[in-house]
């Protein structure tokens, strides 16, 4: 995984406090809006995101650039690849 600080974030979504399936659906919406190559940042405090988000990214063939544990939430950086 690459270092977050070097990546330019195009769309940022704060889904903290949102319950399943909120964060996942917010991420999918943002990926739909983004251009290929752009990075989407997702902040989620929902526990299921830890497994669901990487699994969805793998299936959708996008790139999980970074996944960082913050205080009370997780930060996902996702590159749209297609």
């Amino acid at each position, binding site marked *: 995984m690459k270092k977050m600080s070097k990546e330019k974030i195009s769309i940022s979504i704060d889904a903290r406090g*949102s*319950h*399943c*399936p*909120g964060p*996942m*659906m917010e991420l*999918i919406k943002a990926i*739909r809006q983004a251009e290929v190559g752009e990075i989407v940042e997702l902040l989620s405090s929902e526990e*299921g995101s830890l*497994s*669901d988000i990487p*699994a*969805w990214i793998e*299936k*959708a*063939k996008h790139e999980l650039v970074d996944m960082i544990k913050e205080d009370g939430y997780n930060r996902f950086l996702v590159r749209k690849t*297609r």
Partner: protein
Amino acid sequence: MNKIIVIGGGFSGLTIANKLAKKARKYKLDITLIEPKDHNFYEPDLIFYAFNNKKLSKLYKPMHKLVRKRVNHIGMRAKKVETEKKKVILEDGTELDYDYLVLATGVKYIEKDFKYSEQKHIHHFYSPPATEKFRQMIKRFKGGTIVISPSTVPYKCPPAPVEFTFMLDSYLKKRKLRDKATIKFLYPLSVPFTVKEAAVVVAEMYKKRGIEFVPYCNYEKVDIENKKFISFEGEEIEYDELVLLPIHEGQDIIKESGLGDKEGYVPTDKFTLQVKGHPNIYAIGDCTDLPTSKAGAVSHYSAPTIVKNIINQIKGKEASAKYNGKTICFLVTSYQKAMMLDFSYNHPSRKYGLIPMRIYMLFKRLFRFLYFHILIKGII
């Protein structure tokens, strides 16, 4: 008089208007309900009607039988809310003043890429005409692949596509066609339902009953010519018959009044049910962005909070009553059995309801009577 306007006369709007009517004399409430339709219909039974021959007209009740005396029903469409002037503008230009407003506008279905009525092999069951079209098809069905999927999340009644799939499985078994049919259930998540505890049970039942589940599958478009469902993740899934829930969005009035998010849902305080930034406006039911199901049960359990908070504000107090996210709904698993989902913001679905039982199905079947005779009238 304290002028209260309720926009929308579905289950949510009627329930709140009728509950307020019970307090009308004591608190000097002048209640107006704006709803252009002259009837209400019972949506939860559409999953049964998709597989029977009963008249869909049985699901309708005229509005005049459902509205309490102290509610003034205006049979017109509300066009816009002017929040600064505290006015609602009707379609004919009439302006109505309010002190308190309740938004119960529900959702609308979008037909973006095709019209369901023009597609022989694409169906849904979220309206009586669409249900009628599906049941004409299923009566003639001799075998093939039936694919079921939502098109957007959120959608009304999260258990509905799961219930529909179980009913389809049972119906095909009854007609001895199950071995000639493949049923595929597509869903955006890792599990086939939004309530996790129940989703695990549903996934196991799908496996046992030979229902194929495709996880992380979000609708992108349909290749109508080649009869393929195309997912956002890049999958192509062939079908003979596609049951695709309609695209849901908030109503135009919400967007045009600047009261909605991008999808037209109303940002709503999940406890007080006040519209964020508008302390004298409340939202109830499917039009909200509440982090729970778009289901009648949510409206039923949240309506008393709105009534209490409006009364609190009339008395010059804070809107301190809080909705705790309480929801109880049924999930049909066959002709005979159902689960009972009982959850809130504070606890996941109770385990006792997750075993499919006949008694829950009995409740589900009785519910239409309760809906029209007790719940929608605000009696409890």
